[in-house]
């Protein structure tokens, strides 16, 4: 296949990837977008086969390995519960990172296959790109592994901090730059291996001080890194599809972490420098003062809702933990049969990743035109009868509007307190992710429903 033809086809596949992301601008076009993505990938893989043109028995092995990886991937994709998406994404990122490292290693050992020169005599530009690709890939890998372990609960979510941590990290980063520099002048393979090892280490060190609850921001950041790594390798391989995709993924991750930080009203550095989860937990322990709360049971809740004419549902992380989305949907169906208007209010950072609640509600067959964003629905609370808060906490906390001392001050919140009555489904009075108390629990018009979210919703449905 001529170089021009394959370059054109790679361009087409890059454009298809752009269209894949563009499709996500609305649910209707999103499925078509995904299809574009798949076609783009097919083109890229086919063109690569044809332009290498080496149909030896190696080719058969490639197909076999592809099939092995593909089946594993497909298996995971079908088995994974929707609630485990944050872990899944973290796990997948680690694989992209590692793949980038492997490709860089292979190119370093056998540069001829990539047309980059001979071993020990690799083109300077390619060597730099290769080193960057390998280092960023390695950081992505080890960082994502830690994120995965923390999210899965295999590793404690508590931030691991020690003295001189930031200094050590800075030192390692500097050493990576120096290593790259020497690698380029000496072309020594030892330096290359050291570079990769040190990059693995720094990825690990950067992530451990970050609390488990901040992992979503970290995942997005690593997503961004994996994009830049891919782009770096793209420059080495002189491949347009990789360069375009790398840049897309790089921006996408950066924007998502920005959106999350903004939704929490924290700066990116505040998240990355770590230690947030630690404060949170200690604050959580301190809150021992006892104020009176009104608590009720499923019967009370059912009564309140039966007499309401409009109900707004506010789901949060607890709904995901309890896997209560299906039970919730059934409750809402029953309400609707009684001619009660129901809508869902989704806070931008409800749950543990952007769009988390939307996916879960979609899984439970909630039509997306009943689901509203914060800005769309926030004015409606004043006219609604009941706010049904299920497993959400921080995203309803009015302290964000009133107390400049609070860590979440300035974060936009859902104005549930404006409803005639507020129902809170959670297991205890314990605080949410940000570790701060929620004054709403103690309000006149609040009824606490202490139970697991799924059980409580099922009970309410029975009582309706």
């Amino acid at each position: 296949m001529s170089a021009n033809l394959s370059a054109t086809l790679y361009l087409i596949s890059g454009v298809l990837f752009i269209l894949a992301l563009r499709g996500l601008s609305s649910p209707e076009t999103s499925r078509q977008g995904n299809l574009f993505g798949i076609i783009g990938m097919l083109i890229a893989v086919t063109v690569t086969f044809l332009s290498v043109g080496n149909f030896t028995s190696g080719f058969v092995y490639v197909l076999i390995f592809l099939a092995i990886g593909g089946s594993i991937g497909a298996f995971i994709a079908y088995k994974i519960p929707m609630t485990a998406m944050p872990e899944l994404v973290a796990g997948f990122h680690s694989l992209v990172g590692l793949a980038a490292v492997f490709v860089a290693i292979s190119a370093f050992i056998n540069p001829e296959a990539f047309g980059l020169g001979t071993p020990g005599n690799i083109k300077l530009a390619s060597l730099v790109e290769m080193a960057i690709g390998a280092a960023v890939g390695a950081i992505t890998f080890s960082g994502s592994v830690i994120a995965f372990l923390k999210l899965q609960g295999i590793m404690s979510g508590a931030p691991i901090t020690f003295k001189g941590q930031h200094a050590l990290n800075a030192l390692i980063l500097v050493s990576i730059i120096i290593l790259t520099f020497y690698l380029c002048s000496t072309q020594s393979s030892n330096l290359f291996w050291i570079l990769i090892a040190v990059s693995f280490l720094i990825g690990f060190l950067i992530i451990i001080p970050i609390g488990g609850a901040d992992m979503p921001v970290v995942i997005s950041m690593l997503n961004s890194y994996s994009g830049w790594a891919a782009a770096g390798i793209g420059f080495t391989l002189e491949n347009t599809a990789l360069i375009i995709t790398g840049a897309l993924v790089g921006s996408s991750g950066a924007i998502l972490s920005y959106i999350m930080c903004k939704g929490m009203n924290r700066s990116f550095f505040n998240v990355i420098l770590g230690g947030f989860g630690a404060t949170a937990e200690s604050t959580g322990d301190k809150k021992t003062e006892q104020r009176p709360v009104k608590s009720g049971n499923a019967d009370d809740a059912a009564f309140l809702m039966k007499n309401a004419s409009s109900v707004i549902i506010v789901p949060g992380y607890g709904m995901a933990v309890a896997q209560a989305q299906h039970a919730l949907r059934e409750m809402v169906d029953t309400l609707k049969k009684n001619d009660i208007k129901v809508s869902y209010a989704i806070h931008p950072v409800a749950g543990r990743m952007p769009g988390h609640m939307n996916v879960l509600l979609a899984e439970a067959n909630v039509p997306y035109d009943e689901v509203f964003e914060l800005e769309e629905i926030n004015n409606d609370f004043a006219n609604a009868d009941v706010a049904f808060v299920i497993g959400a906490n921080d995203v309803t906390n009015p302290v964000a509007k009133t107390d400049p001392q609070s860590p979440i001050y300035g974060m936009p919140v859902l104005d549930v307190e404006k409803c005639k009555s507020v129902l809170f489904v959670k297991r205890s009075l314990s605080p949410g992710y940000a570790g701060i108390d929620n004054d709403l629990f103690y309000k006149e018009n609040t009824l606490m429903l202490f139970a697991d979210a799924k059980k409580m919703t099922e009970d309410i449905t029975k009582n309706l």
Partner: protein
Amino acid sequence: MEIDPFIFRLSIFILSIFIGYYVVWSVTPSLHTPLMSVTNAISSVIIVGAIIAALSGNEEVIFSSSSIYGFLAIILAAVNIFGGFLVTQRMLAMYKKKKKDK
């Protein structure tokens, strides 16, 4: 007076960053989770490099010290490609509009 292809690639890279910026901002927030999984899938186009690396051997030595890394990378990338696109498809299939007749 030939222009180094690197300059062109750099142009492509920079322009793509702009596109990424805009295209991602235009994604509706309710699809942010599928966005994460689909970007994951497309970033596995790194498999292009993996294939070149894997096929760098010849009929006698299929698994050389360098091609072996390519084969490993193929597995990893393939997991991502299939996993990423399929899980996205699974998610997107769930986003439905309210039926009119309801």
